[in-house]
Each structure stands twice: as C-alpha cells, then as structure tokens.
C-alpha cells in the first residue's frame, strides 16, 4: 500500500504565537498605547498610599489565589460528575444533580455564603460534640465556609457547562470506544471527558475568571482577600480610582495568566475550522 503523500504532520492553523512572530507592528502599537496609559496614570494620580499597603496587598493576592485555585479545582472535580449524571445518569442521580445546579445557580452566592457561615456555622457551637472535636478549630475559622460556598457555586455553574459539553461529544466516537471493549470508566476517562473538556475550555476559562471575581464575597465573612484590602484602602483614604485601578491591574494579570493557560490547552489539539 503506497501512500501518495510523503511528509508533513497535520498543519495546525492556530499555533500560539512564538518568539519573534509575537512582535507584529500592531501589537507594538498596542503595547505602546498601553504603556503610555500606565505612565499617565502613574504620574497624574495619587499613589503615596501604596507602600503602606504593599504587605497587605501581597497577602491579599495570595488569599485570592488560594481561594480561586482551591475552589475552582475542587469545584470542577464536583462538576464533572454533576454534568455526567445529568446526561446519562439514572433518575435518582439525574434529579438531584439537576436540582442542585438549578438551586445553586438560581440563588445569589452571597446568600449561600451567609447561610453557611451565619446559619450553619452558628449552629455548630451549640453541639458540644462538634465544639470539642478536632474539627472545631477549623469550623471556628471563616475560610472553610468561604471555600465551601465558592466551591459549591463553581460546581453548579460548571456542572451545567459540563452537561452541555458531555452531550455535545459525537455519539459515534463514544460508540467506537464501547465497540473496542472499553469499560464505562475507561471510555469516560479516555474519550468522553477529554473530548468534552476540550470543547468546553473557552467557556470554562470565562467561568474561572468569574470565579476570580466572586472571591471578594468572602470578605463579608472576614477573609481578607485582595479586594478586601482595596476596599480598606478606599475607606481609609476615600480615594476611588487609584485603588480600583490597581485592583483592575492585579485582576488583569491573573486573568491574562488564566487566558494563556487555557488557550495553551485549547490549541494543543488542532481543530479544523471553517
């Protein structure tokens, strides 16, 4: 059997820009505009407060990052079964998964956070058993409630996204997996999940950014993230734009990193676009 073609791998149209390919004229112009904007802001606005808050900002960023990554990762791990149950589960898994996603997405995160922290959290001390258990030092803290609420919320939104992604994988490819004797778990792990996740990456990226912007809510239960530090600056100095612009810049860096990471995974598998 002779193949007519001799060389070459698949041509990937959407390769990430690398090296000198990155510095195209319009990009340089954009960067110059951006740089001059930053310079203007730096010169014409008031930044004398900044040094005083730097340590707090640093720890705030760390708290935000920790919150974001822990909740997004755990939340995603929960979202996968939630999405799958809604697509193929038996009714006794499907129904609770649906209800969970609907109720959590349907109510404000702040309310959930408060119900957990002030509602559930204030019930715990009434049980001596809990009060004396090894868990108490954690239950007394605020962050476990913040992590729990944010995780649940992320899981519900992503459960919905994954439901769609699972349903969107072509039936034929799953059939092929089954036809070769793959067990449900193997077929899921090797074909269904990677295919679904790859397809959902752009949406998941957005949802992760949204999660980043939801983390400030934990400030209401005394977890000091970067947003809380910025609020504190605003309250103490009554400056509005300077601290908020700094916050925006910080978020922009984090978002930029997320976008690049997600785009990298997206482009690892070339798709033929039309």
């Amino acid at each position, binding site marked *: 059997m002779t193949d007519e073609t001799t060389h070459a791998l698949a041509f990937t149209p959407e390769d990430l820009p690398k090296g000198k390919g990155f510095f195209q004229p319009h990009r340089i112009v954009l960067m110059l505009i951006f740089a001059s904007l930053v310079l203007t802001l730096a010169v014409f606005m008031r930044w004398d407060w900044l040094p005083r808050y730097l340590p707090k900002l640093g720890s705030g960023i760390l708290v935000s990052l920790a919150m974001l990554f822990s909740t997004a990762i755990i939340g995603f791990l929960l979202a996968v079964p939630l999405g799958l149950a809604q697509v193929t589960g038996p009714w006794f898994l499907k129904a609770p998964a649906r209800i969970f996603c609907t109720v959590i997405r349907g109510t404000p995160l702040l309310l959930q956070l408060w119900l957990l922290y*002030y509602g559930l959290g204030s019930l715990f001390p009434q049980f001596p058993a809990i009060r004396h258990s090894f868990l108490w030092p954690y239950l007394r803290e605020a962050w476990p409630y913040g992590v729990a609420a944010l995780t649940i919320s992320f899981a519900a939104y992503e459960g919905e996204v994954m439901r769609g992604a699972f349903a969107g994988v072509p039936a034929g490819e799953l059939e092929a997996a089954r036809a070769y004797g793959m067990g449900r778990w193997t077929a899921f792990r090797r074909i269904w999940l990677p295919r679904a996740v790859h397809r959902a990456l752009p949406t998941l990226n957005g949802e992760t950014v949204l999660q980043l912007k939801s983390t400030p809510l934990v400030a*209401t239960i*005394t977890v000091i993230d970067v947003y809380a530090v910025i609020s504190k600056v605003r309250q103490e100095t009554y400056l509005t734009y300077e601290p908020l612009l700094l916050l925006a810049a910080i978020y922009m860096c984090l978002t930029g990193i997320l976008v690049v990471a997600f785009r990298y995974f997206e482009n690892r598998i070339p798709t033929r676009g039309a």
Partner: protein
Amino acid sequence: ETVKVGIAAEPYPPFTSPDASGNWQGWEIEFTKAICAEAKLDCVITPVAWDGIIPALTAKKIDMIIGSMSITEERLKTIDFSDKYYNTPTGVIGTKGVDIKPTPEGLAGKALGVQVATVHQAYATKHFAPAGAEVKEYQTQDEANQDLAAGRLDAVQADAIALDAFLQSDQGKECCDYKGDVAPDLAVLGPGVGVGLRKGETELKDKINAAIKAIRANGTYDAFSKKYFDFDIYGG
C-alpha cells in the same frame, strides 16, 4: 440654589433609614434638614450606594455627603470635611458573663471584631493587637455582631450607638452586654463625624460650619437629638 446631599443608600439606623415607601428618616436626615434650613440651602436628599458616593461627589453628581463619615488626616487628603457634627464614644461589648475589660490587658488573647476601615479598627490595631488581641475585620457592623452572637468572637468594638442598637435587639439582649468605653486617643479616633465636601469649595463649607454652629447654639440640634438619644451625641 439647590444642593444635592448624598446619603448612603444602605440604611444606617438610627442615622439614616428608609421606610418601604422610600422616605428616609433618622437623626442625620433631621440634621440635614436643620442645617439646610439654617443655611437657606435648597437641599435634595440623594441616596447613593456607598461604593459610588465619593466618585459621585467628585463628579458633581452630589454636592456634599452626610453619611457618618469620620474625619481623619488621611481622608482630608482626598476630600474636605466640615467641622464635626457628632462624635460618639467608642465602646466594647462582649459575651455575657465573660470577664472582658476594654483595655489592652483585658482583651489579650481574645477575638475582637471591628468594622473594616473605621477609626475603631485603627484604634484596635494600635492598642489591642500589640497586646495580643486577635483583631478580625468585618465589612459591616452587623456581620461583626452576628459573629459575636454565634460565638466566634469574644468582643466587638464599635461606636457606642451602633452597639447599643444591637444590645436592644432580641439577639443582642440574649448574648451580650456592654463592657465599657475605651480609653480616648484623639490621634486615632479623630475629632468625630463631619460633612464630606469637595475640595476647594470653601464657600459651601463655611456656610455649613456656620449652620452647625447656629443650630447648636439655638437649640435645634438638641431638640431633634433628644428624639433619638438619651445622651449628648455631639460629644466632648
């Protein structure tokens, strides 16, 4: 001329608080009416969410802020303040039956809740934290109170009026009592609460200052204050 008076859209009873038909009432509302009448200003009360109240002032959507804003050095770099129009003592409440004193030694090793970015926080950070108190920051006073009731805090430091309001509530009555005022420190606690103004508008500022003086002098101030408080809200 009309003057737009910004107040926080989030209620802060007994100073500002709306009813269900959108009418605002409270001590600061009466105060506003009194100084506007005194200074012959045509005042329009404009509720603005707290997050937007300073930009609203600087963008001239409102002309002054009457929102229990404590005067501090730091804030004076950004906006202007009138003379103080009230100043309440700073106190500490704590769980009933627990021996807590509003002193650095008395709070050592205790969890103390304060509202973030208030003079109380500054005070607690300066005096209590070095002595070993764990100072926790809350976004609102109510959240701190809730955590005190839930047992996560041992004490809460705040403005005596806010604390009193909580202690009057069912929840507050049950859990907590007043542990006393903290020692004064003018450098941290500041002169009190003033009307927030745009920088450079000295004419308006002078009018307001004059009006505050006048209503203090002619008894209007005390008259409406009596309806709300059984002590001297103007402070020492």
